[in-house]
């Protein structure tokens, strides 16, 4: 920032005509403008019944306008445009925070009343009104997600090993491209796929837990492949070459050298993939259905899962509506906690199991 040099030069040569001193707004000007905007906003809002929301809206709009006009008259058009964009971009970030904060607040507010021991220990078996819980649904979600992980991780991991260690040419390009495309398959279509597959295999009206696991796998595999691929690419080639130089076969090099080096990243990727599918509702809705009792066998009959449980509690409340709504919100809260916990675990894995570098 050498704003004073040109002015000093100009002022030292007075023969060049009128001196053009660069004028700048004082540092507190934008803040002041916004405070003034908020004050006027509060006044305007008070005219039509005071509310914090409208005060904020008026304040931000008026403040931005004031900053723009001030800058435009004092510092010129270009600086004014710069400040206007800064204000817009910051506001956009603030706007995006509104749904997040509102959502978390709403779920906490509505979900906490039933966040009790009974919710985690009772099923909905023979419960028509108050009481009951999601014990069966939580276990169902854990079982089906674990099954989906069991299916997806070997396939996804081996595919990423193929892409990084073995793959070449058209097959590699095709797999990379279609894995990317697969990440965009709508979850409901994955559910329909599992339904169609099992209908062809076992006949009509079959609803078993493993169908849900297959549907979730379709959604999970591409995520596992992409994240594992990125991590395996980061393993330095020197490690592989050192291993080959010792006469270790390629497959043992991959298993004993490459995978252990990348284990932290692989764990993170798998955990994030689990987090992505654990809240999936639509595929489970059409493949696994819902029951009120506890069924822990994914190969026989319907199972309850937490997202589907939440959905039906909300949309098909019985006579004791409030009890159903409470259970629905608590289930939503448990889901969010589950997903957030998985996200945090993923971060911790990558922090604590990261390969020690710089030995």
């Amino acid at each position, binding site marked *: 920032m050498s704003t004073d040099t040109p002015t000093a030069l100009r002022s030292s040569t007075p023969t060049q005509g009128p001196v053009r001193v660069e004028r700048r707004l004082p540092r507190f000007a934008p803040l002041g403008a916004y405070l003034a905007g908020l004050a006027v906003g509060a006044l305007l809002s008070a005219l039509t019944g005071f509310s914090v929301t409208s005060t904020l809206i008026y304040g931000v709009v008026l403040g931005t306008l004031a900053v723009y006009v001030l800058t435009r008259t004092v510092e010129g058009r*270009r600086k004014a*445009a*710069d400040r206007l*964009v800064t204000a817009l*971009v910051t506001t*956009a*970030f603030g*706007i*995006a925070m509104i*749904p*997040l904060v*509102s*959502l978390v607040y*709403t779920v906490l507010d509505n979900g906490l009343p039933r966040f009790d021991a009974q919710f985690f220990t009772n099923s909905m078996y023979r419960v028509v009104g108050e009481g009951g819980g999601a014990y069966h649904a939580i276990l169902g979600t854990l079982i089906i997600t674990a099954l989906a992980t069991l299916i997806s991780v070997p*396939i996804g991991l*081996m*595919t990423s090993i*193929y*892409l990084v260690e*073995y793959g070449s040419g058209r097959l590699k390009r095709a*797999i990379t*491209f*279609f*894995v*990317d*495309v*697969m990440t*965009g*398959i*709508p979850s*409901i279509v994955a559910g*329909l*796929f599992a339904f*169609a*597959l099992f209908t*062809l295999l076992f006949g009509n009206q079959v609803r078993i837990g493993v169908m849900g696991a297959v549907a979730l796998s*379709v959604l999970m*595999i591409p995520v596992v492949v992409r994240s594992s691929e990125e991590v395996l690419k980061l393993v330095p080639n020197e490690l592989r070459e050192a291993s080959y130089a010792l006469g270790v*076969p390629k*497959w043992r090099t*991959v*298993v004993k050298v490459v995978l252990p080096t990348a284990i932290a990243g692989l764990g993170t990727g798998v955990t994030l993939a689990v987090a992505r599918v*654990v*809240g*999936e*509702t*639509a595929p489970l*809705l*059409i493949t696994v*259905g819902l029951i009120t009792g506890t069924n822990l066998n994914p190969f026989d009959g319907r199972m309850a899962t937490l*997202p589907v449980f*939440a*959905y039906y509690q*909300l949309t098909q409340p019985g006579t004791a509506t409030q009890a159903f709504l409470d259970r629905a*919100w608590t289930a*939503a809260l448990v*889901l*969010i906690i589950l*997903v957030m916990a998985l*996200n945090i675990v993923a971060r911790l894995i990558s922090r604590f199991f990261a390969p020690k570098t710089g030995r």
Partner: protein
Amino acid sequence: MTTTSAPPSPPQPKRRVGDRVFAGTAKGSGILILLILAGVAAFLVSEAIPAITAPAEDIPGGEGLAHYVWPLIVGTLLGAVLALLIATPLAVAIALYVTYYAPRRLAAAMGYVIDLLAAIPSVVYGFWGLAVLAPTLVPFHEWAADNLGFIPLFEGPASSTGRTMLTVGIVLAVMILPIISAISREVFGQAPALHREAALALGATRWEMIKMAVLPYGKSGVIGGAMLGLGRALGETMAVAIVLSGGGAAALTLITSTNPSTIASNIALRFPEATGLGVNTLIASGLVLFVITLAVNMLARWVVNRRADFSGAN
């Protein structure tokens, strides 16, 4: 690999059994993924055929498959495009904020907070949309019907519940925001430092630097990200199923209570109770959704990958 017609310059290492098995398994997994994708298409087609070949009066609604699916397609596209229109400018602004405006030390945390929006399950978005957003937007619906009614999209009568296409579009916009902004953030961060510094050195303000050096570089990345977001919005199920009071005809309205439903939400709502040809009809509509999202995603990936080819950032 054993028959070498090329000059045997490096001595071929002995292929061990373990190696062959391992490489075979890896390759097999890759091929299996392609087979799964093909299987998704094949099984959907095979289950949809009864509905495609059935006489028109047997299809639910009684007027044939095309008549059944058309309003759903309109609803799906309307909601997704609306979400895209809302989310893209916001996501680009957020990406710019995180990469070039936010305090350096907070930027990573802010990016993470935005990513959290993507972690929330869609059924919870549905809850939120129904319980919070829809009632909040009712006054806006009435205002729009009174003041913007001359635009066909905003023709009244306004819904009194707020469970309209407009609300759905906003919920979907929130859901695809993190996808678009994550990809935009990535490409904006990769804008060549030399260009940026050159612009600043010539006296450009920060906005002028972004306009001249960052946006042109990141344009195709943003387009690709937006299309990925579009793909997600097209297939979004639960949030729409919970929020929208659908089932109307194929009409381009945003604020009335008779909205066309979307393909995905229609499947979720009808499938558990469907029987016989009803199931096939729903699967046929799922096939349509699959084809639409596949096309959008392939186009998006193509745009994103094309940028990667000549970016020279790596």
